[in-house]
């Protein structure tokens, strides 16, 4: 019991501490890929600390909602991230929320972020919010369909169960799972505002989506939101990791040795995924905002196909 | 035929006749309205006394049975309330000089003669006598429709007169044919025209003759029921005559003709080889219902609108009786009573509305619930009732008709429902214009006689919620008679 609580707590801290590092690593790799030195891996930590120190410049008619939102976003994302198995399954509170809930938690984070974007009353906030909800309105159903197909395979929406099932040999190779994986990756890219859907580094207003929403944020609020976005990336990566690379995952009750192995495996997976992401991002160019629906529509169709093909592949 | 009961029957005939004579001779025209009301009240009481007294044995000319008591009581009741309404209506007409003193005397005398004719039609046991009575009632109404002497009124009366006369002729030929059919079986003379005798022996009559007879009777009396395509006289007669007469036409005269049709339907049903009257009546009913439903949409004259709605409801009633069976017949009877009450109430309201607004054009009447709440809401309730919405009586009858029809002949229920919806849409469209929106037209306060219309509506409402057991038993019994 206590040990499991400890594991759960450890997980929460780990994700919190690991998230900026992941971003830093991705940026580093991207820089190296274009032959730049690039900032150091721990630069994100420094940014966060600096933001913390800065004063907050608040727009004149920003309401209480604007000031509360960063904490809500951060909290929701953190809870979600803390409930995804990273280095161990069957966490103490994993039954609090299954995969659907995790998706929904991210959804509520986005909900408030969009609202905050509209609070100040500039057109940029509006642009960001409207584009964000458009993307979300396609990404969320795609995500839920992916959840469906996973759940229909594993017979559960409970992540630990799914992960355990995916680890077990009876899974075999399935077309629909492959489709779900591709769809999941596409959704993850969109959700995390990565290239080609959105460019986290841009500051040209008309191309921004995520950045436009948080344009008015500064100081500690911005820090919170940044941290939340880092967490989100980590979350999706660990999700992909635990569902599609379920090796080296042990129950939380397993001994410290096993946990250590799990942690090591987890780090390797993250590293691999980060490198893949970096390579992908450097390889492709950002698409126009109104091409995004096609991109996500493809993801949606893939996910749906995956769900429907389940019956076929199962009957084989 | 002796005893008090005879007096009751005689009373409902002689009171109107006598009153007519008095009214015609009356020097003081101001009194006439009162006398009219009193006479109608007495007739009503006499009719009610039919319940308590034992029936006379069916004679050669007169007959009282469960079927016609329903009609008689309804007839005398609406006759009475209408006379009350007409008193206040006519008073206003005198002020506005649309009617003069001699007109008035004539009008009231005619009113009583008409009541006499209708009562006679109901109690007559002799198909020839019934024919005479119906025609008497028709001709008196013709004269009343033309009473305003305006071009349109005369034209409407003339149309009514001509089409009515043709109807008279057809009905008479039908009657003669029935006699011819009966004569070999019953023997020559009056007996071959006595309904109670006919119905016993109907099985042995010549079916072919009966069939032809029924077609002529259906067309002849159907003209007065206002079934499409024989309806042409009805809308204009309603629109151009004095509103009390419109109320009586819709509320009563149509029933008289319907009663005649029913009697002969029974006769025909009693003879197995003759054509079934059901299909004919069902077809005519549906035709009238749907036709009137469509015609409602483009009406611009408020009284003509409700005249068409009468055609529609006569269609429903004839349809119900055509369907036959205890449920449908019950529904038909109920619907007929409810329609008489509701429609006359609507015409009461419309009469006052037309008077206060000084026009019958629908487009010039708006927002009645604002300008004249009393009349406006009465109109709303009336139209809601006539459109078959609960909790008013017509809903119950339509419920029974539709559901029983659908259970028995689904393909018949579809056009029925279609017609009902079409008519509903039209009535509601007009109601929305009349009762709501920015008030338009004369805003003067009106001294209306609210009692008749609201008492009718109250009855209709009560019937929609609760039918007293004896009444139900009675209706079921009558429905049984109607087969």
């Amino acid at each position, binding site marked *: 019991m206590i040990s499991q609580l400890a594991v759960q707590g450890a997980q929460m801290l780990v994700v919190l501490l690991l998230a900026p590092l992941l971003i830093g690593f991705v940026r580093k790799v991207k820089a190296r890929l274009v032959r730049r030195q690039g900032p150091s891996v721990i630069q994100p930590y420094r940014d966060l600390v600096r933001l913390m120190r800065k004063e907050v410049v608040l727009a004149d008619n920003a309401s209480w909602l604007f000031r509360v939102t960063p904490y809500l976003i951060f909290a*929701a994302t953190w809870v979600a991230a803390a409930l995804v198995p990273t280095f161990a399954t069957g966490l103490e509170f994993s039954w609090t929320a299954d995969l659907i809930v995790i998706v929904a938690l991210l959804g509520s984070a986005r909900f408030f972020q969009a609202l905050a974007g509209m609070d100040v009353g500039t057109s940029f906030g509006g642009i960001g919010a409207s584009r964000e909800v458009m993307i979300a309105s*396609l*990404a969320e159903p795609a995500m839920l369909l992916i959840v469906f197909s996973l759940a229909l395979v594993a017979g559960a929406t409970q992540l630990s169960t799914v992960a355990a099932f995916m680890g077990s040999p009876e899974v075999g190779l399935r077309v629909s799972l492959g489709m779900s994986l591709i769809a999941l990756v596409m959704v993850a890219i969109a959700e995390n505002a990565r290239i080609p859907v959105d460019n986290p580094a841009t500051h040209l207003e008309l191309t921004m989506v995520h950045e436009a929403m948080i344009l008015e944020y500064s*100081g500690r609020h911005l820090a919170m939101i940044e941290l939340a976005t880092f967490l989100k990336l980590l979350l999706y990566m660990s999700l992909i990791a635990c569902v599609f690379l379920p090796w080296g995952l042990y129950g939380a009750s397993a001994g410290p040795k096993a946990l250590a192995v799990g942690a090591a495996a987890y780090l390797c997976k993250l590293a691999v995924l980060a490198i893949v992401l970096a390579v992908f991002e450097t390889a492709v160019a950002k698409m126009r905002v109104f091409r995004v629906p096609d991109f996500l529509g493809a993801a949606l169709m893939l996910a749906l196909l995956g769900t429907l093909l389940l019956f076929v592949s199962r009957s084989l | 035929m002796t005893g008090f009961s005879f007096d009751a029957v005689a009373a409902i005939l002689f009171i109107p006749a006598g009153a007519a004579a008095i009214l015609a001779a009356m020097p003081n025209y101001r009194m006439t309205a009162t006398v009219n009301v009193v006479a109608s009240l007495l007739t009503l009481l006499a009719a009610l006394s039919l319940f308590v007294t034992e029936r006379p044995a069916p004679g050669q000319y007169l007959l009282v049975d469960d079927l016609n008591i329903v009609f008689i009581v309804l007839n005398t009741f609406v006759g009475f309330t209408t006379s009350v309404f007409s008193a206040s209506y006519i008073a206003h007409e005198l002020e506005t000089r649309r009617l003069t003193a001699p007109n008035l005397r004539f009008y009231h005398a005619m009113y009583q003669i008409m009541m006499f004719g209708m009562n006679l039609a109901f109690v007559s046991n002799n198909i020839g006598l019934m024919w005479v009575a119906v025609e008497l009632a028709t001709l008196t109404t013709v004269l009343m429709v033309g009473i305003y002497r305006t071009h349109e009124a005369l034209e409407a009366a003339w149309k009514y007169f001509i089409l009515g006369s043709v109807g008279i002729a057809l009905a008479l030929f039908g009657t003669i044919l029935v006699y011819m059919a009966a004569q070999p079986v019953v023997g020559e003379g009056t007996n071959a025209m006595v309904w109670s005798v006919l119905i016993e022996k109907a099985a042995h009559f010549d079916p072919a003759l009966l069939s032809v007879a029924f077609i002529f009777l259906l067309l002849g009396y159907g003209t007065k029921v206002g079934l499409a395509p024989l309806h042409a006289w009805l809308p204009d007669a309603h629109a151009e005559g004095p509103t009390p007469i419109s109320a009586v036409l819709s509320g009563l005269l149509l029933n008289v003709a319907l009663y005649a049709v029913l009697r002969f339907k029974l006769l025909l049903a009693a003879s197995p080889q003759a054509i079934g009257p059901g299909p004919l009546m069902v077809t005519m009913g549906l035709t009238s219902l749907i036709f009137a439903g469509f015609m409602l949409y483009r009406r611009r004259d408020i009284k003509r609108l409700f005249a068409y709605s009468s055609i529609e409801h006569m269609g429903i009633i004839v349809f119900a009786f055509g369907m036959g069976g205890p449920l449908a017949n019950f529904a038909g009877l109920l619907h007929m009573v409810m329609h008489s009450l509701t429609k006359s109430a609507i015409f009461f309201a419309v009469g006052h509305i037309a008077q206060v607004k000084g026009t019958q054009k629908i487009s010039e009447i708006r927002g009645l619930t604002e300008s004249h709440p009393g009349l406006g809401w009465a109109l709303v309730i009336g139209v809601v009732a006539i459109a078959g919405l609960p909790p008013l009586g017509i809903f119950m009858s339509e419920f029974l008709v539709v559901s029983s029809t*659908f259970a028995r002949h689904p393909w018949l229920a579809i056009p029925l429902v279609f017609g009902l919806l079409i008519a509903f849409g039209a009535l509601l469209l007009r109601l929305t214009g009349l009762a709501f929106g920015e008030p338009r037209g004369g805003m003067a306060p009106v001294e209306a006689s609210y009692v008749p219309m609201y008492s009718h509506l109250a009855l209709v409402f009560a019937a929609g919620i609760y039918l007293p057991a004896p009444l139900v038993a009675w209706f079921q019994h009558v429905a049984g008679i109607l087969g």
Partner: protein
Amino acid sequence: MNSTVALLLCGPAAFLASAIMAAAASRLAAATRLVYGATLAISAVLLVTAASHLAGNLGEASATLPLGLPWTGARFRLDGLSAFFLVVVNFGGTITSLYGLGYGRHESQPHRVLPFYPAFLAGMNLVVLANDAFSFLLSWEFMSLASWALVMAHHRDEANRRAGYIYLVMASFGTMALLLAFGLLAGPAGTYAFDAMRTAHPDRFAAGAVLVLMLLGAGSKAGLVPLHAWLPLAHPAAPSHVSALMSGIMTKVAIYGFIRVVFDLLGEPAWWSGVAVLLIGGVTAVLGILHALMEKDLKRLLAYSTIENIGVIFASLGLALAFKANAMPSAAALAFTAALFHVLNHSFFKSLLFFGAGAVLSATGERDMEKLGGLIHRLPVTSFVFLIGCVSISALPPFNGFASEWLVFQAILRSPELPQWGLKVIVPAVGGMLALSAALAAACFVKTFGITFLGRARSAAVERAHEVDRWSLAAMAVLAAFCLLAGILPGFVIDSLSTVTLPLVGERMPVQMAQPWLSIVPIAESRSSYNGLLVLVFITVSASLAAFFIHRFASHALRRGIAWGCGFPDAVPAAQYTAVSFAQPIRRVFGGFAFRSRETVDMPAPGALEPARLKVEMHDVAWEVFYQPITGAIDFATERLNHLQFLTIRRYLTLVFLYLVILLLVLALWP
């Protein structure tokens, strides 16, 4: 005559009495308080009675009054289902009356609202209690009639009159459909009592016909696409608290009617009936919320979102039908519970949102979102509770909307066990539709709240706005509280629904309150579980942790400045995103097939002074495909037939003559 039923029947009687009283005294100053006070008390009593019956699991009770159809009598029955819906109806009645105590004072013509409001409540109560076809239809149509009168309350507005007209015509259409359905169930003998219908099982054809007719009848009242056209017109036309009743409660009464007939009276369903209901539900959900997204009138938006929720409910009812048809009672119970749960939730947050809209309306006199904005500064409390409503209806944890949607998804995940391939494939597809509609709902309510309450004021009316009265705030606060409670204690609701599901689908969901930490486990913990309470706790804890950390270590400095506008100082409020522009990206994605929308830009030549214009044309497809042809046909027919009014007498005689000859011919050819 059971005492509970007697008490419950006294309720409508009392309502009607107060309606009459209102009609008599409606011009008094105190009338508003009197009437709403009375309805508040009555519906509170009814609520308690029904709730205790539901919680106490007291089984059935019935009563017969010598009213209505003579040989059937007016029969009333109280079972789990009707008890649950009585709770929904009377909770709505109570809270709406509370709101009305304050809101009613803004009414310009109280005598056009007060008499009909209690009548409306009475009608809804009676529908739920009725146990024979006649009483059911009578109450049903009476409910429509009363609500029609309320829609016509502000009758000087042309649009309202039109709305009322369309509403009542559609209502009458629905009633006719129901009438036919009952005619089939009653059979030629005319046994209109529900008990008799329950025992007599119609053959397959009849059952199919009844299902279709119920979809037409109850669906037109509930607002299923394409029978929804009246709903977004009529619901907003009524005074806001009545809109809340119509949208939040009356649609539920329609759903009650559907459940009562299809699940209770009709006996064992066929599997394809599930398919039909599922598909219609899914389509309704998606189209409804898309319409809502395109809307800029606050109350119409809410009405459209009602259509979406109705779609969700029907979809999960269809799921329940499919499971029931395949003898999977536990799954059916899950889907059915989800549907009922969503019924309850929707009645909560839709009432809340309409109340909020009413508050905005009475504070600013505006329903058009394009003229609002920045209200969060003017109406702090209203905006807060409205936000809660938005979060709940967007199905976000830990509020109640999410709980029921989560259950629906759990039910969908049991589809592989279904034998029919059609269902296997369709159910996940419909699941996708529901997911889509949920995401769109979130987008829609981001827009609603963002445009209405956030940003800067778009009109002077907003500047003058003040927070609304206490009664309204109280009502909204209570609803908001219930939204949260139902979200974090879903187990309680699920358990109390067991008495409803057990008789109708033959199974109940496993007991939830026994679960540790009050989490809900529809099937098995290893399979799926959700704990709203803990989610709430975690979020609060971690948020406050973060806040504490920040305030402990980070800088507290805060400076107010003008917002960044690309270097342009204070851009005018008109430069903000509007409701329409907010919806534009989504319109580009879905508008093509949903509205056949087309955008045309006329860009002036470079250097020309006139502004560039963007024209968007959108079509209400349902209206154009289903309604316009009908009206056109009627118009054509009337046009043609109308000539018969203007014939000469000779022609009329010709008609008679021809008719006579035809009949004689028929007779001559008669065998």
